[in-house]
């Protein structure tokens, strides 16, 4: 104690016991989330412009390509719109990697790392703030989807579960984006690098066309990769079909992505060397 008494400032942050540690962690994360939410609120144009890209994809698939794609059972609009929901969330998530790269470059991350706050707080707070952005863009896409003829056919609980699945996948994926942003440390590079996983998962999937039309070597990946199983699960939940198997697969993928990329992002953040 004599040691601590000579450092009155340390006692402020040391608190006592695990209870205090958890309390400080929550406060730290809350502070970072607040910072990023304020940034989102003060740049509303980002949310609007962020919605344009998925809106264009929606129009493109619904009206330009949709006529040429035949779905065995059901309408194409109900087939593609759930995929657009996920696309919108993944496109929005790219701001996580760009934003983190920008924070690294501007030196603000240096300040964060020199403070007694928990090291995971900078990343957790950011991804939580970006989750709220996902909610916004999902809301926008639901509105646009119903404008182009998308209809829900399931119970309210099932629909809510579908939306929760979209958001949880988006949240897990924001840790992929966080890792990319921290590893590239440059906003422009982060932007280009962030598009890669999105493109691969989006096009080699069941998002736009049924997997059955693809060559056999591609089918295995396209059917079982995380985005595809999530899209299948969301479709089933919104259409009211049997969903349990796909939902569990999607949850498992999201959990695995979260655990792996949380560890990677935290490792890169901790060992950031300039």
């Amino acid at each position, binding site marked *: 104690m004599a040691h601590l008494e000579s*450092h009155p*400032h340390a006692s*402020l*942050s040391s608190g006592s016991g695990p209870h205090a540690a958890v309390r400080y962690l929550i406060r730290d994360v809350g502070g970072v989330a607040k910072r990023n939410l304020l940034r989102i609120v003060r740049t509303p144009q980002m949310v609007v412009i962020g919605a344009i890209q998925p809106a264009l994809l929606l129009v493109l698939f619904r009206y330009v390509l949709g006529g040429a794609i035949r779905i065995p059972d059901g309408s194409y609009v109900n087939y593609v719109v759930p995929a657009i929901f996920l696309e919108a969330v993944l496109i929005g998530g790219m701001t996580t990697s760009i934003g983190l790269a920008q924070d690294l470059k501007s030196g603000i991350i*240096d*300040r*964060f790392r020199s403070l*007694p706050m928990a090291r995971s707080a900078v990343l957790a707070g950011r991804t939580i703030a970006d989750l709220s952005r996902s909610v916004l863009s999902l809301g926008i896409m639901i509105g646009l989807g119903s404008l182009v003829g998308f209809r829900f056919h399931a119970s309210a609980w099932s629909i809510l579960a579908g939306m929760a699945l979209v958001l949880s996948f988006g949240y897990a994926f924001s840790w992929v984006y966080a890792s990319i942003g921290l590893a590239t440390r440059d906003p422009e590079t982060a932007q280009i690098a962030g598009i890669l996983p999105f493109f691969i998962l989006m096009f080699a999937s069941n998002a736009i066309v049924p997997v059955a039309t693809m060559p056999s070597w591609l089918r295995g990946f396209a059917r079982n990769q995380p985005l595809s199983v999530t899209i299948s699960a969301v479709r089933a939940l919104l259409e009211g079909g049997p969903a349990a198997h796909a939902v569990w697969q999607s949850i498992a993928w999201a959990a695995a992505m979260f655990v792996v990329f949380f560890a990677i992002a935290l490792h890169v953040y901790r060992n950031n060397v300039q």
Partner: protein
Amino acid sequence: MIEPMIEVKGITKSFRTTRALAGVDFTAEKGAVLALLGPNGSGKTTLVRILTTLLRPDMCRARVAGYDIESEARALRSSIGLAGQYAAVDELLTGRENLELVGLWYHLERSEYRRRAGDVLDRFGLLDAGDRLVKTYSGGMRRRLDVGASLIGRPPVLFLDEPTTGLDPRTRNDLWQFIEEMVADGTTVLLTTQYMDEAERLAHRIVVLSEGSVVAQGTASELKEQTGGARLEVRVTRREDLNRAFGLLSEFGDGPPHADVERQLVSVATSGGTAALIAVGRRFEDERLALDDLGIRRPSLDDVFLALTAGPPASTAHEHAPVTTTTPRD
């Protein structure tokens, strides 16, 4: 007993093939300003990043505010403040929001960090601008806010990495005053700078870094003495008088004079102060030797810096050269 707040023993750090720090030692006492002086790439920023736990050293024993930089990093971070070369404040937040968040992250209670944020805004002349977004601030205001943010936790040790680089003279002067006030309150400051006047004004102790090694340390006057003492210097009006001036000065100096033909200067080491200056002036008048300038020149910290960090020491430039061989005509 004097309490060391920063103790560094044998820091080494390499990045792939380049050696950034090659064994640096120094200590800073409580309530003192230690300036790390060195050219770009000398390792100043690397050192600051290591001491603020942003970077792991290859080898080192160092304590800051009594905490080991590796095993007690978390506690150490509660006892330091860092303001960098680039103002690390959020443009989309107001000045007050920036400060309050930093206070929250120092784990202060809400009422406390609100009060301190107000204090800092007041002290740094940002009270009127406090509720405006930082993107509307001038460069000097951002820098003040950045330094202010590092004070929210009232840390006993403050790291300022080139805090005044790129600031106008007035803002610079204001910042210097703030730093002096903090030091008067007992804060220990480690300051990196490329500006000699800054080091001279603020630092109790200067550590000169070059290529990752300490090449000299001491007070400003100790460093100047290392480079050489005061010199009596005359500039003759007519170049043909150089030889006579050389002869006269050799009677007054502590050593052989040195002539600079190009600038028509002759100088000699002196310890005689003003008396010597007056005597030399009289003598030159008696000899009817016209002078453009006469004075005592003390080495500036700039001379020290250049001498210590750029190859051959400046004393070689003062080596006496027989005037007969260097004067084009007499």
